[in-house]
């Protein structure tokens, strides 16, 4: 459905997107993952014909974004980072305007408006001014706007940014729901979001492609080497850090143990497991069996940067991978 090859966007001083290539099959949900400023939005803008690429090509449904932008635009629904709404318009008025822009009219348009309102759960705010709607509703109106002409491809730029947890869940469900009918690319800098909604993931950093993989593989990468934080306390108000450390290092599958901090008789250790082994149970058992108290055991939240480091560390060995640029 979408084919991107060697896509590059250069500005006067910087290269926002550097020779990115990927393909998206029909009906897939693809997560576009990267930290802020990685070039996600720029890539999406090139796909939606908002920005022309400096070099390279991108085709949507077989139409080139530079050669046949009209055909591409007809087949794409786009939700930019901030929903493109006019605050002085009412919801139904706005959807009517967008529908007309996308070439709908008459009964078709009325039907589509009813359909998307019901689909995005905005029927109850049809006559409200967009400027008075809450962030969550605006986002849903933005989604409704994107699907009004029933496009083949949906491009969503950070669809859950700035929403509260409940709204995030609702939006994710809605996106998953839409997946059957549309090919969806959504960008995010939140890793769990990709895990929950996407089948395929494209990771970019500093404008370069880091990896394209299925979500399952990515999870294996991210989880393979797990980092766990444990808080250990001594029974009779004394704790010998070195002996705990040695004990923990002896647990099967542990690759590294670090003492993070120590307060009186309590200490927090960071334990890193070897790839593919799950050590939490064994660590807990080892601590308790040695007569110490296990106050807390939790997986260290893996930041995207860590995933990146890990990914690039692992991927560097693969010859077809573009290595990530290291900043001095």
């Amino acid at each position, binding site marked *: 459905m979408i084919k991107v090859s060697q896509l590059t966007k250069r500005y006067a001083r910087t290269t926002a997107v550097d020779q990115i290539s990927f393909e998206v099959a029909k009906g897939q949900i693809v997560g576009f993952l990267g930290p802020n400023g990685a070039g996600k939005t720029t890539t999406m803008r090139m796909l939606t014909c908002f920005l022309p690429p400096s070099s390279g090509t991108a085709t949507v449904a077989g139409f080139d974004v530079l050669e046949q932008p*009209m055909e591409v*635009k007809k087949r794409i629904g786009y939700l930019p980072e901030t929903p493109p709404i*006019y*605050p002085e318009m009412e919801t139904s008025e706005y959807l009517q305007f967008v529908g*007309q*822009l996308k070439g709908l009219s008459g009964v078709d348009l009325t039907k589509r408006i009813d359909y998307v309102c019901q689909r995005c759960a905005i029927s109850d705010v049809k006559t409200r001014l967009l400027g008075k709607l809450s962030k969550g509703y605006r986002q849903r109106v933005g989604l409704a706007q994107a699907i009004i002409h029933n496009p083949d491809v949906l491009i969503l730029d950070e669809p859950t940014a700035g929403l509260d947890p409940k709204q995030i869940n609702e939006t994710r469900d809605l996106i998953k729901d839409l997946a059957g009918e549309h090919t969806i690319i959504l960008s995010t800098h939140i890793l769990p979001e990709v895990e929950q909604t996407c089948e395929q993931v494209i990771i970019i950093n500093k404008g370069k492609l880091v990896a394209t993989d299925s979500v399952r593989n990515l999870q294996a990468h991210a989880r393979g080497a797990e980092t766990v934080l444990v808080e250990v306390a001594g029974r009779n108000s004394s704790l010998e850090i070195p002996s705990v450390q040695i004990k923990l290092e002896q647990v099967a599958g542990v690759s590294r143990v670090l003492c993070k901090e120590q307060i009186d008789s309590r200490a927090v250790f960071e334990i890193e497991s070897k790839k593919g082994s799950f050590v939490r149970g064994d660590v807990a058992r080892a601590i308790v069996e040695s007569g110490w108290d296990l106050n807390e055991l939790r997986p260290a939240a893996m930041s995207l940067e860590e995933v990146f480091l890990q990914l690039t560390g692992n991927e560097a060995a693969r010859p077809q991978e573009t290595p990530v640029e290291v900043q001095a």
Partner: protein
Amino acid sequence: MRNIWVICRKELGSYFASPIAYILLIMFGVIFGFFFWNALGAFVFESIQSQMSGRSFPMNLNEWIIRPLLSNVSVVGLFFIPMITMRLFAEEKRTGTIELLATSPVRDIEIILGKWLAAVLLYACLLLFTAVNFAFLFKYGHPDWKPLLIGYLGLLLQAGALLAIGTFVSTLTKNQIIAGAVTFGICLLLWVLEWVSGYETATWAKVLAYMSVITHFESFGKGVLDSKDAVFYVSVIVLGLFFTARSMESLRWRS
């Protein structure tokens, strides 16, 4: 064509959904009402004077009221035009809605024409206010309506030209105030350019005077449809909209 109308209707909707249109209409109505009242007062005073002195004074409504009022409107218009055009693109760029327009299957030129047309129509609404006052002249006197119509055509053409320039300026910035101020500056400059012809007769002065939008209105104000002046306004409209189109294109390459 349909797309132009869709955009134009949306723009008109925005003008009339916000206070902009109403404030402009009221301000213009009040200002023009004062001009009209003033001109009428002067006219009545003069005609009484001439009657008392026994002079047969050829009093003509067209010459005494309509013509000066129309040229007043053409100058007052200079002040209102920036307020009409400043939001056209600047607002869309600021709120990001420009992305919606630019990624919809609509050509740039359709967006531009739609917006410009909406601005012209809003200006036409302002002119409609003046028609209310002129209607009284027709009720109580017998002015010639043809010069008035030509005068209106001239006003619309002149406004169309300045609105095209304003539309162009609005694509250059995200800030409405900047767009408005620059447009106002250009409008003012295009008005006063003509002053050089008062003391200078060299070719450059003639060129400058020719560029002044006000000089081209004189014939329209008199009720004369001079193709030379009409062509001037139409060329400025085309040039302004052409620049707007180029500016929108460069927006994509730069952004």
